[in-house]
């Protein structure tokens, strides 16, 4: 890395070398049994330079290809975007616990047992279900250095356990599932099994809903699939800078229901997206996005922040290309109402656990429209069965402007979102009988 940096410094005003390496071991279960064990080693080296004020960028999988890398970055810098920012110099990072050596040392046999135990619990409940499961451990190492003396490095561990079950009776198909990730080894399959068994119980009977506006409860998984994609785009500093975010000019204004507070926090110990610094070497911080219904701030990387005349929130993330602003771990604060009280409050309505295709609509404007992949009908305060062939549509901003209630108990969804259920007084529902 130092050699590449030294070489790049000779031809450019500023340079940064970023090295990401990972080793992942996933075990895959198909048709209720172990099907494959994989080991994936990968290396990604990226060089970012500022030459004559412009950004150049090149990547490779092999750190030995030094020569070509610098030249390739220089070639792209002829056309690159003018760089408006300075790379961070020496920075003090907050301590964030993200490495548990027990993840790496978990034996494959133990991971296999975990998957088998999880599947066994589900099959005991529903013998004709067919499950796919995944148990994985991963170690990620990141290192970056730049020409202003900035440097950062960390190593983290991620352990994941997930399951998807399908229950097929003639052409009627039911899909249930749950997954979690953590910086610690997951040793007990019960928490995940409980979610899946609950889905199977609630979906035992079928029910139909009318085509009209109905009150709807989004479970934590429903919130993550229906609202989070739109919100993350709207709070992205880049969308705001372009004037394409519906809330871009509402900073400090009340846009959402007073009961809603939401923040991004990459410093929570042992969450899969936690880290002491972002992919540009800027220190991690908790960034409030919605405070009691008011738009509190947006997420920025270095370049976007410079263009917007503000500071980076430490939200730069690379997905193979140049860093872009991106959320890490999204938390929605719980309120007072229990899930059962929400259900009790509904005469006729819907509980949405999983929405399919919600991200396909005009998510920039907040419109969403999706097929209820897993959802339940509520009649007179009771969940009576699963709905099918049902679509809901609405606008995230209209819905979240006035919600009936926010749940009292938050849950992790897939390791990256922590949210309680959200109860909306009315939503447009279309159903095919």
């Amino acid at each position, binding site marked *: 890395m130092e050699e590449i940096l030294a070489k790049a410094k000779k031809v450019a005003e500023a340079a940064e070398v970023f090295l990401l390496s990972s080793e992942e071991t996933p075990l895959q279960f198909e048709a209720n049994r172990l099907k494959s*064990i994989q080991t994936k080693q990968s290396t990604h080296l990226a060089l970012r330079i500022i030459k004559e004020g412009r950004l150049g960028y090149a990547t490779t999988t092999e750190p030995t290809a030094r020569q070509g890398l610098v030249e390739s970055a220089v070639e792209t810098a002829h056309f690159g*975007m003018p760089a408006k920012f300075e790379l961070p110099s020496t920075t003090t990072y907050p301590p964030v616990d993200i490495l548990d050596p027990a993840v790496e040392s978990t034996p494959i046999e133990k991971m296999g047992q975990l998957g088998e135990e999880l599947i066994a619990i589900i099959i005991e409940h529903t013998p004709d279900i067919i499950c796919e499961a995944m148990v994985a451990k991963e170690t990620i190492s990141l290192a970056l250095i730049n020409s202003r003396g900035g440097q950062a490095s960390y190593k983290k561990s991620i352990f994941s356990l997930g399951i998807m079950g399908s229950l097929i009776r003639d*052409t009627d*198909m039911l899909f249930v599932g749950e997954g979690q990730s953590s910086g610690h080894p997951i040793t007990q399959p019960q928490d995940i099994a409980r979610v899946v068994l609950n889905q199977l119980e609630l979906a035992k009977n079928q029910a139909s809903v009318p085509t009209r506006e109905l009150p709807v409860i989004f479970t934590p998984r429903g919130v993550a699939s229906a609202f989070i994609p739109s919100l993350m785009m709207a709070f992205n500093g880049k969308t705001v800078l372009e004037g394409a975010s519906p809330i871009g000019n509402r900073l400090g204004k009340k846009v959402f229901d007073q009961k809603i507070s939401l923040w991004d926090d990459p410093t929570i110990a042992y969450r899969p997206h936690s880290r002491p610094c972002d992919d540009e070497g800027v220190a991690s911080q908790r960034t409030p996005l919605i405070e009691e219904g008011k738009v509190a701030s947006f997420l920025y990387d270095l370049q976007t922040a410079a263009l917007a005349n503000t500071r980076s929130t430490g939200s730069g993330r690379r997905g193979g290309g140049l860093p872009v602003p991106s959320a890490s771990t999204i938390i929605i604060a719980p309120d007072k109402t229990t899930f059962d009280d929400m259900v009790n409050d509904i005469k006729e309505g819907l509980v949405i656990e999983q929405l399919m295709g919600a991200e396909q609509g005009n998510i920039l404007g907040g419109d969403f429209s999706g097929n209820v992949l897993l959802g339940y009908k509520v009649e007179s305060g009771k969940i009576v069965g699963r709905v099918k062939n049902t679509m809901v549509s609405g606008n995230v901003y209209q819905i979240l402007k006035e919600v009936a209630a926010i749940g009292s108990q938050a849950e992790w969804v897939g390791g990256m979102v922590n949210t309680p259920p959200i109860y909306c007084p009315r939503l447009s529902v279309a159903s095919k009988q």
Partner: protein
Amino acid sequence: MPDIKAVSRQLAKDLKKYRADYIEARLEESQRSHITYRGRELESVGQATAVGGNIRALVKGGWGFTSFNELSDLPSRVELAVKQAKLVGKEESRLASVEPAVDTVASEKHSPLAISLSEKKQLLDEYNDIIWRTPRLQTSVIGYADSHKKTIFLNSAGSYIQQQRTDITLRLSAVAAGDGEVQQAGLSLGSRGDFSSIKGLHQEVAEMAKSAVALLSAPQVKGGEYTVVLDPVLAGVFVHEAFGHLSEADFVYENESLRQVMVLGRKFGSPELNIVDSAALRGLRGSYKYDDEGVPANKTYLIKEGELVGRLHSRETAARMNEKPTGNARAINYSFPPIVRMTNTYIEPGKSSFEEIIADIKEGVYAKNWFGGTTSMEMFTFSAGEAYMIRNGKLAEALRPVVLTGNVFTTLNNIDAIGNDLDMNQGGGCGKAGQMPLPVSNGSPHIRIRKCLVGGS
């Protein structure tokens, strides 16, 4: 860069030494470039090179797989894959038999590597200028990416296949804003490495930008059931999402109840309906000579005259279902094992003209252009980039983009008219099991679907 040819020759000698039922290796080197614009400005330009490989081993029905960027010490990688496979394997290994092939597939006709970065940028500048000549535009995104990949596949049965793949994608979208409303329109294009195929689209780009602005004043459709006419682009997405995924045998082969549902001979649609997947078509983004298990490409009828007649296979799924392998095992790159995937999937043309298809629709929806699509096998949703009401046999007012949803078993049966204007769309990318976007193409003529559920206000 390490020479993957030299590495693979040594590996070919070694592969037979290990105790496994089957071992294969895939080595790859690739070069890519990308240029993106956000708004008026170029946002990012970059170049990337990658070298990597994988080893996959089968022992008693269990698979071990290792992928890596480091090409040194491959024997220990093979040992690891074999060891993992042994930990899994408890049954009998079954792979459909395929003649080992030793082949060097001729170089691609077009390579984006031959085009300079400045020529690529010049074209994108022209398109961006056109977009920004449209009034009331808030922002735009242009994403261009190309790649050239060389692959060497070898296995313990003696196959040694060298192939190349070039690929170009271009996605453009325009975002219009007014009165706190935001609307967007987009274009997705692609080609088998031929840069000239994305040139000269100035007219289409201008229309795209105008339609984003027009959507601001368009009404939203009232949700409910409609007779829907799909254009070839969207019908192509429909056939991919609603039926294509269901015909991938890896969903079916170990699931007894799904096997009964997807039994060959089952009636899915009218006698006019024919659905095909073919990697053997030349020059499309889903085309190849051999798949990533070294199986030659095929033209596979999935539905013939309305009946289920075939499905897409890997060597393992074919053997377990006692059917013929179809050459549909694909991996997006060296870090993944091959899984059953589509290639170029299309509805064969019928007899009707577009005018005939809409002539007797009193009130319906004409949905055009691709925005996205996803499926849970039984149920699917796909979204249109543009939509219009059809009133009394004629196209009427423009609508906000619509999302269509349905149940595959009833919807295919509800197709009651198929156009004569087959067109293949090269702009798609398919996702499955974390491998996305895989280059595919989809196509169809115009089709009419009765009683299709449309989401709306």
